[in-house]
């Protein structure tokens, strides 16, 4: 019943929406899926052909067990998000529990919906590969067997996580569920990155000790293929299916089925008991106060008019007080540390070996450029949409939309340019490409950061969303796509101009600094021109907007 309602909602929001944009979006989404499926099928087919020509000995039990263990991580994350969402954020739980049905059946049906959703997602990602494997192995039951595994495997995770969620809501204050989920997501993303760095053979130090006999190309996780864990059962049955050993496959699938059935039955009853015992009642909200830091904030924007300053300060407060918003700001910095920090000494030595001059100075800007990519998209594209349903406050005030956009440009460009400047200065100090080159590179980085962020604000205004309730849906996918595309064009143009300036200096014997400065000025000027254009388009869209 719940599944049917979800399907109806999906159809109503897409094909039945009667909105051209949504219908086009649905068709485009379906086309992208078909395209990805075709690619997946082709790559699998190529892989199968290659394995026929050059036989490779792979421990499929270990490989599939590791894959299912990694999938367990995905299941834990998505199930926790789904369960906490269902308990804390979705408004329909009270309605369902008020219906004349047992609490156990309502909570169990939630678990079934989650299992079905994960099952479909698994098929979505692996379906074409399984079909190709079935054709290549002349064994048409392969997709069916794996589908059974995909249906059974998530059950124990979903049940355990649902129970854990019922316990967790006991300690999560009402109204902070979204923030806790965000924090959890960040923690998990960092953990996955670190785990990848530590376990992925491609990234690991060659001197890292392995157990003897383990394949060099596979992560060495001993428990993954243990016969005591579900990942080991699924790995063994999957491996047996591929080998055509149906008896072994059936035995392990049966074990998974029996365990899942017991866990599901016990979990349903236990979740009902936990609910009835009052575990659902979340912690009452704590009164949260605003810390008076007005003077400090006002001192930070002394040159702006009161209206602009008011919006900049308000945005800063909104972004720093809302964990979900704050994460958008902090995440890129953390990930940059994870990506570069762990490989820092080797990278620094490589760049320093280039000596003085623009190549070293510009390569030193790469971390700042990655930060700019992330921050300009997260802060710039979302700057206008950040208002959400509160946009009426500004729309009813005696100010023009251009002034509003001006404020948004300041609000997004100030923190972005500051962070980019700090990263650029730090990198140039470490690399030491020569004072003149370093100072010029930093100034250009700051100018480019401001221009690119303003460009994103303009695109964000064109594709602004004001009806979001979840910060994750604040930005329009088309806006993100265009923003990323334009960022790539600006990056490619800057790189090309750098190469042209070096070549020109070599060919004409002009001083390299002159040609480089000219090239970078053209690059920044181009970005500013595109940014101005995007602001004009954005303003046009906001002027035509009706706050209904």
């Amino acid at each position, binding site marked *: 019943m719940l599944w049917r309602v979800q399907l109806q909602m999906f159809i109503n929001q897409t094909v039945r929406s009667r909105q051209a944009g949504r219908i086009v979006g649905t068709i485009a989404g379906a086309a992208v899926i078909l395209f990805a499926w075709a690619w997946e099928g082709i790559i699998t087919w190529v892989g199968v052909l290659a394995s026929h020509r050059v036989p490779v000995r792979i421990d499929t039990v270990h490989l599939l067990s590791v894959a299912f263990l990694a999938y367990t991580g995905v299941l834990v994350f998505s199930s926790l998000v789904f369960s906490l969402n269902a308990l804390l954020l979705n408004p329909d739980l009270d309605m369902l529990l008020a219906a004349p049905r047992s609490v156990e059946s309502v909570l169990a049906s939630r678990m079934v919906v989650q299992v079905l959703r994960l099952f479909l997602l698994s098929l979505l990602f692996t379906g074409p590969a399984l079909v190709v494997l079935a054709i290549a192995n002349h064994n048409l039951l392969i997709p069916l067997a794996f589908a059974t595994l995909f249906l059974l495997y998530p059950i124990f995770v979903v049940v355990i996580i649902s129970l854990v969620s019922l316990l967790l809501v006991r300690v999560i204050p009402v*109204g902070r569920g979204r923030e806790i989920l965000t924090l959890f997501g960040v923690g998990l993303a960092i953990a996955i990155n670190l785990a990848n760095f530590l376990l992925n053979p491609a990234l690991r130090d060659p001197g890292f000790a392995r157990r003897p006999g383990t394949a060099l190309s596979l992560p060495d996780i001993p428990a993954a293929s243990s016969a005591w864990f579900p990942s080991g059962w699924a790995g063994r049955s999957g491996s047996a299916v591929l080998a055509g050993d149906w008896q072994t496959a059936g035995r392990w699938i049966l074990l998974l089925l029996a365990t899942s059935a017991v866990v599901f039955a016990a979990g349903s009853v236990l979740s009902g008991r936990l609910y009835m015992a009052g575990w659902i009642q979340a912690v009452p*909200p704590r*009164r*949260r*106060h*605003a810390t*008076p830091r*007005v003077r400090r904030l006002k001192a930070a924007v002394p040159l702006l008019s*009161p*209206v602009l*300053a*008011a*919006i900049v*300060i*308000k945005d800063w*407060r*909104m972004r720093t*007080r*809302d964990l979900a918003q704050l994460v958008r700001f902090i995440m890129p910095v953390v990930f940059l540390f994870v990506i570069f920090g762990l490989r820092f000494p080797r990278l620094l030595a490589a760049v320093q070996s280039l000596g003085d001059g623009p190549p070293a100075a510009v390569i030193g800007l790469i971390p700042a450029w990655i930060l700019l990519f992330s921050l300009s998209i997260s802060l710039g594209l979302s700057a206008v949409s950040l208002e*959400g*349903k*509160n946009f*009426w*406050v*500004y*729309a*009813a*005030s*005696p*100010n*023009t939309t251009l002034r509003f956009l001006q404020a948004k440009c300041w609000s997004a460009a100030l923190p972005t340019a500051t962070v980019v400047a700090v990263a650029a200065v730090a990198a140039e100090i470490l690399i030491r490409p020569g004072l003149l080159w370093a100072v010029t590179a930093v100034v250009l980085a700051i100018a480019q950061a401001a221009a690119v962020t303003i460009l994103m604000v303009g695109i964000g205004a064109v594709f602004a969303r004001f009806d979001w309730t979840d910060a994750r849906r604040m930005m329009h996918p088309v806006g993100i796509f265009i923003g990323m595309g334009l960022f790539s064009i600006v990056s490619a143009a800057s790189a090309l101009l750098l190469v042209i300036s070096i070549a020109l200096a070599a060919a004409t014997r002009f001083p390299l600094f002159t040609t480089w400065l000219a090239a970078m000025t053209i690059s920044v000027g181009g970005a500013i021109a595109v940014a101005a254009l995007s602001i004009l388009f954005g303003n046009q869209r906001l002027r035509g907007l*009706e*706050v*209904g």
Partner: protein
Amino acid sequence: MLSTRLLTKRYGSLTAVEDLDLEVGAGELFGFLGPNGAGKTTTIKMLVGLLRPTSGSARVAGIDITAEPEKAKALIGYVPDAATLYDKLSAREFLEFSGDLYHVERRLRDRRIAALLKLFDLQERGDDFLSGYSRGMRQKVSLAAALLHDPQVLFLDEPTVGLDPQSARQMKDILQDFCREGKTVFFSTHILEIAERMCTRLAIINHGRLVAIGSLQELRHMVGQDRQSLEQIFLELTGSREDDVSAVLRGLES
């Protein structure tokens, strides 16, 4: 103070408001009534410049809201129904923000904020985040923000929804005081009792069209019953459905 001429709003084939002609004078407390979906909120949103009329015009203190929106909005205070406010700001910070948007000089703004927080009994909770406020408290903050820049015309969309009886009473007193200063209040409500007791004049809108306008006495004359309540007048002008309701309820029982 406020006038509309043939004000119309269409969404495709749906006409939300049609040829609305209104004249509201200074010092009037004007009630705008109508059933759900009659076009009240659409009208108010056109009058405060949030929606553009499909045709016709609206003037506030002689200024055309479509031609000179910024100039007109400076004279307007607006309280929407179920006002969404910035959750991560405190009431004081929201009022400061609002004051800056309306170009209120900083010292004057701070003085008025202190007075308004006191008036609405929000002093103690003034530094709490708005996310922790009840609907009624948000409504008060919203009204305080609308009054902060000392507007000439105040538009309120269902202002008493969510307010406790004391707060509703307090709001009525504030609005009446506001009108005594020669300023205008234009508000929509479903609570006819409030409209009956407070308003100097009333307008009733149904299916986007104005069906009646005048003082309570004038509306009584219009329906030909001198002692009828506003509720009876309203039901008569907008079409009573009491018989239909009884028939449906009987159908459910069988």
